[in-house]
């Protein structure tokens, strides 16, 4: 039976958008955690760690999110873990995020002047203390704009997980379209909801960027 595209459908889309947010936040949390580890490994004194981290970044940035998703999904089930799609999806999006965040944060850490390392070392701080009290606080300021910018990419890429059956916003759009056969209004509405979520973040990223540049210039 064909239904018209009405307010019930719109409501359904908004409800599904909650799952988009949940997925994004889970991936951000996981990706942030892994990403920090990757960034720290990437700038560590150990050759092995640096090489491993840089290889990890190359691999994650060289493989489509969709393939990462399937690798996590089928890899885990091959190994005997049958995870619910939502978990596998969060995990693969987290890995995807860690590859990019790790790289962004490496850049931020490396952009802190060498003299900051020397000054803090000469005060007898341990390497961990140097990171915690001197380097990371300064990197955060540098890393924030591109991190927020990447969050937009991450949110958009949650649409991919519709393929493993997680009913997030895009999958909900498909379902509504299948019921209404009104692809234009349906997918334009889906796009509009993504836009409502992403555009403010884009604006914030741009604003932070401008502030940061002003701070550097002034």
């Amino acid at each position: 039976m064909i239904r018209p595209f009405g307010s019930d459908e719109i409501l359904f889309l908004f409800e599904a958008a909650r799952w988009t947010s949940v997925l994004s936040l889970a991936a951000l949390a996981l990706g942030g955690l892994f990403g920090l580890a990757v960034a720290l490994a990437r700038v560590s004194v150990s050759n092995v760690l640096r090489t491993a981290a840089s290889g990890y970044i190359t691999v994650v940035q060289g493989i489509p999110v969709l393939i990462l998703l399937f690798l996590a999904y089928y890899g885990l089930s091959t190994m005997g873990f049958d995870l619910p799609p939502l978990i596998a999806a969060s995990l693969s999006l987290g890995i995807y995020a860690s590859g990019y965040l790790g790289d962004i944060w490496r850049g931020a850490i490396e952009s802190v002047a060498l003299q900051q390392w020397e000054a803090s070392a000469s005060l007898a701080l341990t390497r961990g203390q140097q990171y915690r009290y001197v380097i990371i606080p300064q990197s955060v300021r540098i890393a924030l704009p591109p991190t927020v910018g990447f969050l937009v990419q991450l949110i958009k890429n949650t649409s991919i997980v519709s393929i493993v059956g997680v009913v997030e916003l895009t999958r909900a759009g498909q379902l509504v379209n299948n019921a209404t056969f009104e692809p234009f209004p349906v997918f334009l509405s889906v796009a509009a909801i993504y836009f409502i979520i992403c555009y403010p973040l884009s604006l914030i990223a741009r604003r932070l960027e401008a502030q940061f540049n002003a701070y550097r210039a002034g």
Partner: protein
Amino acid sequence: MFQLQFAPALAETPALLRGFWLTIELTVAAILLGGALGLAAAMARNMGPRFVRWLVSAYVELIRNTPFLVQLYIVFFGLPSVGVRVSAIQASIIAMTINLGAYAAEIFRAGIESIHRSQIEAGASLALTRPQILVHVILAPAVSKVWPSLVSQFILIMLTSSVCSFVSVEELSGAAATIQSATFRSFEVYIIVGAVYLGFAILLKSALASVGERLFRRPGTAPRKAKLAAEPGGLR
């Protein structure tokens, strides 16, 4: 304990290669068309009348803040619903072009804005014509400045082409989906396909980088990267 068996997947090499070839075609088409669209959009935004500028920035913001998959659905499902028939491959190329165009426009714009007025005036004082100024004083240095960002964006659109399998385009990811359902060696299939993407990404990146070097070679401008933690024990 599980065991990886690559043989069944490797037996499907011809299908994988056909998929890979389609990925290459999609990518090249998107880079050429999307790159051109982006350049046109950037110029329109920089030099066009106010209304056109507004239109271009709306286009850029709308595309950059919505998922590619949804854009693809709008093209693939939406156009036929208003009587425009497109094949899945055509829809994919259209969506990839529009998508890349928006990102490329932003990148080109940044490049164009980095060109100083004084350089344009210098060009004018040398009696260059307006088109000559546009090409030699504005666009060439602008593009050379932002080439690395463009290359990253080109790689991203290549990776994004995998999403076209959602509308059953048999590019690399689509081929993988078909093969894995036939062989039941899903993990192995995706390991192989992942490796192919990775190899292609690395290849494409270095190829585009050397294209950039050819196109914009300027002696002695290679920026020296500050070495920080690279020296073991250098940061005691």
